[in-house]
């Protein structure tokens, strides 16, 4: 194995050690472990939210998109760069308050309690599980490709090693470890991508040099309408490209759960600022590297490998290894959160809610672990036998999740009369429209982006559907009014909310304590009984 491969392996080991170290540190007692969420300030909250949101797509899908479409692809980056600001400011405080009032511990449970129907939970669970696994599968493919380039192993072997690391990390890491390693990963991602960005930028003579070279190849690369003016005048496509990553995050369960586990509502303001700055440094660079790839790597067989190829072409050695470590950071920070979320949904929202209401903690943990393992195996099979492009899979899964859940989550805190029929229509209508639009390639004939089409149908579904069926109960209406008010909890209560609303922490804690992973820890039951 080459020296850069060894550096990469060391990096993975260090990252896993950090995860375990934080788990151990925070597990001196169960209470401390669960209270870990309470200590997450704005910097870590912003980083964990952004690294979870920014997946392997940013290193593979984004440059490939820019390679294909030219500057048009930057429409996606523009929306993405403001996504966290919109997400935090629209949902942040209200959703946190509402979830506390309703006593919801997972994003899907939240929907059931707000819209008062188990059918919402069933439909929500099915949609989220299917597309979260699609989303995580894209991360696996990205991990396999990155590791294959770096180590020289076959794609299949790289995939298995990469996924094994992610699964071990997910099961052993825990919420606090995930959050703190996300912080480290976020820094590595920025340093890695900005570092190569600066070097490549000067290599092609800055923006002027880049644009001059692109113009010489094909002037339409510089157009806002895409190469060959493919989307000329199609504002429906442009608007959809901006909206998918600007407001779409509000429909992703593994991102939305971050609102529910913040230190306090006061964390929002700092997180908005930090994530906004981080976004401007990070998000545009992969797209620009894709454009640089048009000039420096015009014959590349797989455009998703532009960044890795650029790393080896321009900067072989240690720097390339660090950059590829950044790619793995992006993949791991997203994959662990999704797997954990999917495991929580399957065990809590499906198994415990509908199959075995009296399931013991041990059973729940087993189900959760089996679900995560099953997700990993399905991911390996799909990634080996039917590997779609990371770009296509992420846009599809992201868009469908966004179309299914964005309108219900926003309506839950902004539309008082929103009821379960509206929620079901919005979820099913939005997701189905996105699937049909994408699979039948209706965007070319209609000029409407699949996400925009799904969003419009979802909004209509919510408005029309909410006119039928029973109205929200007096309790839910009261909760709605309370969530609109400024803080009504005491400071002390507000600070303590995090421990209740960190389902991932709770899940892992149960697993660790039940398995006596850490000696000398209180059991979860004892913790609950002492609290009560």
């Amino acid at each position: 194995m080459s020296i850069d491969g060894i550096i990469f392996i060391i990096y993975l080991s260090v990252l896993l050690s950090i995860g375990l170290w934080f788990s151990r540190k925070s597990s001196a007692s169960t209470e401390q472990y669960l209270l870990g969420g309470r200590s997450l300030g704005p910097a870590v909250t912003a980083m964990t939210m952004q690294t979870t949101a920014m997946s392997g797509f940013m290193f593979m899908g984004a440059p490939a998109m820019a390679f294909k479409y030219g500057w048009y692809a930057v429409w996606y980056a523009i929306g993405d760069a403001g996504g966290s600001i919109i997400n935090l400011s629209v949902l942040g405080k209200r959703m946190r308050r509402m979830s506390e009032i309703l006593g919801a511990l997972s994003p899907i449970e939240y929907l059931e309690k707000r819209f008062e129907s188990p059918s919402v939970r069933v439909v929500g669970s099915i949609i989220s599980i299917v597309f979260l696994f699609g989303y995580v599968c894209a991360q696996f493919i990205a991990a396999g490709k990155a590791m294959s380039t770096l180590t020289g192993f076959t794609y299949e072997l790289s995939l298995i090693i990469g996924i094994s690391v992610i699964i071990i990390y997910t099961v052993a890491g825990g919420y606090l470890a995930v959050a703190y390693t996300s912080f480290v990963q976020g820094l590595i991602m920025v340093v890695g991508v900005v570092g190569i960005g600066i070097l490549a930028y000067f290599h092609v003579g800055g923006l002027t040099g880049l644009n001059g070279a692109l113009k010489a190849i094909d002037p339409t690369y510089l157009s806002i309408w895409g190469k060959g003016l493919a989307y000329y005048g199609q504002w429906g496509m442009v608007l959809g490209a901006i909206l998918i990553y600007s407001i779409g995050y509000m429909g992703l369960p593994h991102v939305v759960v971050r609102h529910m586990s913040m230190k306090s509502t006061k964390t929002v303001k700092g997180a908005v600022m930090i994530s906004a700055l981080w976004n401007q440094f990070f998000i545009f660079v992969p797209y620009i590297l894709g454009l640089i790839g048009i000039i420096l790597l015009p014959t590349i067989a797989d455009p998703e490998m532009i960044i890795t190829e650029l790393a080896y072409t321009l900067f072989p050695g240690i720097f390339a290894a660090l950059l590829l470590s950044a790619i793995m950071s992006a993949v791991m920070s997203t994959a662990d959160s999704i797997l954990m979320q999917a495991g929580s949904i399957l065990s809590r929202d499906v198994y415990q809610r509908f199959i075995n209401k009296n399931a013991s903690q041990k059973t729940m943990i087993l189900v959760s672990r089996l679900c995560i393992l099953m997700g990993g195996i399905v991911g390996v099979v799909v990634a080996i036998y039917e590997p779609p492009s990371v770009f296509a899979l992420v846009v599809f899964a992201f868009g469908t999740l966004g179309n299914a859940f964005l309108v219900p989550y926003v309506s839950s805190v902004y539309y008082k009369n929103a009821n379960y029929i509206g929620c079901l229509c919005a979820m099913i209508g939005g997701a189905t429209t996105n699937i049909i639009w994408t699979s039948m390639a209706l965007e070319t004939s209609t000029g409407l982006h699949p996400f925009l089409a799904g969003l419009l149908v979802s909004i209509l579904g919510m408005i029309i559907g909410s006119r039928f069926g029973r109205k929200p109960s007096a309790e839910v209406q009261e909760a709605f009014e309370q969530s609109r008010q400024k803080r009504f909890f005491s400071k002390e209560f507000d600070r303590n909310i995090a421990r209740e609303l960190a389902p991932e922490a709770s899940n892992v804690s149960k697993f660790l304590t039940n398995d006596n992973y850490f000696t000398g820890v209180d059991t979860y039951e004892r913790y609950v009984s002492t609290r009560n």
Partner: protein
Amino acid sequence: MFGFPAETFFWFVPWPFIWVGLATVLYFKLKREDELEDKMEEEKNQNK
């Protein structure tokens, strides 16, 4: 203008500045709300 066509320049380049500007405005708005909430809570505690 960095070799951009005018249309591309004016549609793309301002966005990072717009987002940071918006985040700054929101930061101070949320900060004011937090301070107001603290003040209300203090007054409430004093009245008890």
